[in-house]
């Protein structure tokens, strides 16, 4: 089962933080208060897009060829991701 990482509080809709991290080899638990990484604020499709974009050395043309989409379509996808990241930061 592919579990989805919850980002918002189901009760008050505030952004969730990480309180506990566990080593699944030796069962060591670390407690604290950590922010979630910025990229986790994106949905899985957007995260995949960013990963592929980095792999393509940041070339929209290469991305367009790989995804079989036109250049402006890929640029629009990237702009949309940038906007989401800016909103999450804000």
């Amino acid at each position: 089962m592919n579990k989805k990482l919850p980002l918002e509080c189901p009760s008050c809709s505030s952004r969730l933080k990480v309180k506990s991290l566990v080593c699944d080899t030796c069962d060591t638990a670390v407690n604290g208060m950590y922010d979630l990484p910025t990229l986790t604020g994106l949905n899985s499709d957007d995260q995949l897009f960013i990963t592929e974009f980095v792999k393509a050395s940041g070339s929209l043309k290469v991305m367009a060829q790989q995804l079989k989409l036109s250049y402006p379509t890929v640029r629009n996808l990237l702009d949309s991701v940038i906007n989401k990241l800016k909103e999450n930061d804000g």
Partner: protein
Amino acid sequence: MGERESQIRTWLFNPFIYIAGFKSLLIGIALMAISAWVGFLNNSHFDGVLDMHRAMAAQFHIFLLEVVIDWVSISLVLFVLGVILSKSKIRWIDVFGTQALARWPMIPAVILMVFIPDVKDMDLSDIQSLNGLIVPATVMLLFIIWFVALMFNAYKISCNLTGSKLTISFIGGLILAEILSKILIGQIVFGMLILPQKDQLSVLPPEQKGNNVEIAKGILTSLNEEKYRQASIAFDDNMKNAFPVRKMSAFWSGTKMQYGEFEKNMEPTTSNQGEHEIIFILCHFEKGKLNMKTVFNDKHEVIGLFFPPYKPQTKTIEVTEAELKIYLGVYSSPSFPLKVTITNDGDKLIGQATGQPSFQLEYFEEHKFKYDQAGLKLEFIPNENKMILRQAGQVFEFKREP
């Protein structure tokens, strides 16, 4: 199945997801050239971003120029709007390329123009005739909606705009581009069709000046070569206003549609009416004959140009006394025992062999007359002073006595 349908819909209405930039520019330009070619074949002009009208025949480059002006107008306006409104770094090649590809519904639309009857020729009280207009007009409307949807999606993708900013700027841009294209076509294309160019205003070659026959022949040649400005050089001002280039073009296309291609013309004949000289040139077309009638004033300007159908059966009435004068005289032949005297009685041509009763000749073709009761045919060659008599399979050549 659902995914396939959705893919077809995307390719029909928003192919720009997959194609943009240089690739769509090349494909779009090729498709625009095809639409211009079809327009050239059925005289459908692209006289505005969203306009298409049947009008005068013109050369292919005129139709191509109209298509290019339409495309550049909409692309330029939307590109400027995109630069102002979009937060993305937009590329001109995407805007121009996608807008070029968006014009491809013009091809089926311009083909459909053949099936849309001219409202001027229709009896609007006739329901069947109206039905003939409604069906293709409805299909045309669907093509226009499709075309606008493509332009909208091309703008949306190439300029990365959404929401009301996208919709309002597109509508405004479309109206602006329509006005711009109308102005440009009016200034550039219409000017090319109507306005005489300086080099063509330099009237006729000196040897043709004052020679009405040569001018009339020149007009016919120019019409046949579709050089309408050239054809109207010798027109007086009233004629230039009454019969401008676009009317001449429409007239000549209509004539060819009705009578087929021009094949040949006979030698001109002339007649005078007061200070006016009239030149007749019998023109043979594939499907019939027209008798080109050019009327000149005393300044060798054309004041009238007519192409009545040639009607041999009524021609005897139309032949004027003046036209008959070139045939009159006494003709003799060494192989024929009698002399033949040709006279006229008003606009009737009369023949009489020595000692025989006179007979009235009936005009049936250029320089040719007949007398059916005797199975006689006479052909005159006025400039050689000759007459050929044909009767019962025999041919006699006569010479006019001095």
